């Protein structure tokens, strides 16, 4: 293999695939990035067997070939190179990659490309197409709510329901749920419902460029999902199992609803979080209606038994009665961060029923947080 490309393009490509490299694997080749030539492009591939990413970089191919090179070493070296043409040549006998750029040169020992698992993305005539920025927004609204610990594997994924004209993402850990929907111009003919690892979607979100359309494919045996971008592809294993019936959990009614400035509420919750840090993150919300004028106050408070306390007050629109509920400040913060409308609605029933956040006048998006029960 003998190939050359621009340093910036190579560095970008390496960072796109880099996150799919296995960090702690018993299979040494998975810590490597595969470099292979494909027509007049250099293809970079990495996989940790859960997700795999292919990325193409424009290159001048002098001699076809493939090898795998330790990811960290190659990325660190390439990113330190000047923005000039990088020439790479594989010495097949020793599986050593000679890398030259200006007056810099390195020889990096690799592993035979034969040992690298193939990341195959099937061709499909009629894939589902989703606008890149729609997909990005949906990931931002939902994926953070997925569980990070593996005790219930289905909860580490995002339920993706793709209908002919709409798609819905839902994710939950044991304490909160995020659900959002968007219209879909080119959906599947028959509805598809799969659970995609939240991490895969977050990686996808990272590599989607502006104005891009993403093609989505689910393997016929329903164990893999493929996303095809203009110059990259991502494949992910799907999570097996049944996602909890989230529609059941979304409360049907409430006793109190407030509408507040999203930015102001977020600021107050952030402040409370500082004090709640060593008190299990407990943040107390108290709604005090003024009277019948539909206005009132929201009082946000946190107390640290060791260090002190903090109280903030916001003017809000209130319907319904006064109520006091405690939430985990971190969950409130993360949910408010995902809401991009100027105003947010919070609906509550009582101190032990879920709180419901919705963007006011915005997209179809609902976020449910279970409260904390506070010892009195």
């Amino acid at each position, binding site marked *: 293999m003998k190939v050359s490309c621009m340093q910036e393009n190579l560095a970008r490509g390496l960072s796109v695939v880099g996150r799919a490299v296995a960090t702690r694997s018993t299979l040494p080749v998975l810590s490597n990035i595969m470099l292979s030539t494909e027509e007049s492009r250099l293809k970079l591939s990495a996989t940790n067997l859960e997700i795999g990413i292919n990325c193409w970089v424009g290159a001048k191919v002098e001699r076809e070939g493939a090898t795998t090179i330790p990811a960290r070493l190659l990325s660190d070296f390439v990113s330190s190179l000047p923005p000039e043409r990088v020439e790479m040549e594989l010495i097949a006998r020793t599986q050593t990659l000679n890398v030259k750029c200006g007056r810099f040169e390195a020889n990096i020992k690799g592993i035979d490309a034969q040992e690298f698992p193939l990341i195959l993305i099937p061709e499909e005539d009629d894939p589902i197409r989703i606008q890149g920025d729609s997909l990005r927004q949906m990931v931002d609204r939902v994926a953070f709510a997925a569980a*990070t*610990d593996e005790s219930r594997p289905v909860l580490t994924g995002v339920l993706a329901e793709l209908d002919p004209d709409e798609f819905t993402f839902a994710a939950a850990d044991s304490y909160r749920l995020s659900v959002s929907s968007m219209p879909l111009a080119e959906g599947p003919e028959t509805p598809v419902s799969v659970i995609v690892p939240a991490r895969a979607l977050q990686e996808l979100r990272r590599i989607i460029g502006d104005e891009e359309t993403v093609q989505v494919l689910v393997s016929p045996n329903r164990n893999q999902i493929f996303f095809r971008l203009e110059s990259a592809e991502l494949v992910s294993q799907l999570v097996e199992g049944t996602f909890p019936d989230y529609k059941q959990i979304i409360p049907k009614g409430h006793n109190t609803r407030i509408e507040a400035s999203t930015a102001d509420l977020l600021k107050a919750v952030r402040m409370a979080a500082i004090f709640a840090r060593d008190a*299990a993150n407990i943040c107390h919300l108290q709604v005090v209606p003024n009277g019948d004028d539909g206005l009132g106050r929201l009082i946000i408070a946190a107390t640290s038994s060791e260090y002190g306390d903090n109280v903030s007050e916001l003017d809000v629109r209130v319907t319904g009665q006064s109520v006091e509920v*405690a939430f985990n400040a971190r969950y409130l913060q993360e949910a408010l961060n995902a809401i991009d409308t100027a105003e947010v609605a919070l609906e509550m029933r009582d101190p032990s029923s879920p709180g419901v956040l919705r963007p006011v006048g915005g997209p179809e998006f609902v976020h449910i947080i*279970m409260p904390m*029960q506070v*010892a009195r």
Partner: protein
Amino acid sequence: MVPAVRQIVHVDLDAFYASVEVLLDPSLRGKPVIVGGSPEGRGVVSSASYQARACGVRSAMPVAQALRLCPQAIRVSPSHGVYGKHSRAVMEVLEGYTPVVEQLSIDEAFLDLTGCEALWGPAPEVARQIQERVRDECGLPCSLGVATNKLVAKIACGQGKPQGLVIVPPGQEAAFLAPLAIETLWGVGEAMGRRLRELGVTTIGQLAERSEAELVRLFGEGGGRLHGAAQGLDDSPVHTERERRSISQEHTFGANVADRQTLQRRLLSMADHLAAGLRREGLVAQTVRLKLRYDDFETVTRQVTLDQPTDQADVLYGQALGLLDAHWNRQRLVRLIGLGASGLLREGGYQLELFDHSDQRNARLSHTLDEIRARFGRHAITRASLLRDQFTGPEPSDE
């Protein structure tokens, strides 16, 4: 620098629940009072006033039996939620003397008064003051022991009950312990007591005469500690809450271990102990840490941070297993396994669950188990999977 002689005070409220009930209802004063469930149900005695104890009533005895022994006794149902407030008031009195207060349970605490002489006078004098103030300000009787270490102070306190004040001067520790029955010592349970009695050892003094080597041969690792304790030696510090950042437990296997099941059971048993320790102190842990030492003494420590802080054994155990599976090199023999919980927070709230309520059910179950163990002893109830070889690890140690 560690001063040569410490001044440790152990404070123990006398018949605490019963004393609080007397405080709430002064007409009970001077009468035999039993705090416990109803005798028709299968209630047991949580606490009994000394007048009731005089008839032979003891904690953990079925209430029905207690009432047979002491028919004139007045039975009161436990007033849950009230005792904590009174306990807090007492602890506040203690904290007025030194910040170095270690609360052992709702009705017991150690104070380290070393270096406080200039401020409050000699420790025995302070102890007398504390006894008066707890009586006058909190309305509760208590007993105190003063000694140069926790072990002797606690035993001294027990010897003076009720309303006693026993002072063991420096240098007199071994002499003070010598005539006492061996079971008075911490760590001498029923089984060990029986073993020692069979060997003709009935008092701590006789135990002190045995060589350390002999005790180690008889009781393993614990034998060494026993030897020191019998001499009245104990250098464990008084732990304040502020210092408590983690709790952990370790176990060294008699023979190196290669099978997962043995490690798994040991982890389960340690998780049980740690979780009980957390609950006893009203703490929750954010981080779970697994320690493995291989036969060549290479030691691996790995930890994981939880979404929600916990005081539940099942959660600690589940995380520990996850760490074990991820990091244990199965080709190698394990010599020691340890489980630790850190990032400790004072429990202040409970995150409700979205889908099921198993966490809450488990919390209630743990609470019930704690109560059963508090009344009937640690081995009164255990997991079936731990039954066969009765893992009885040491109490959780702190770091």
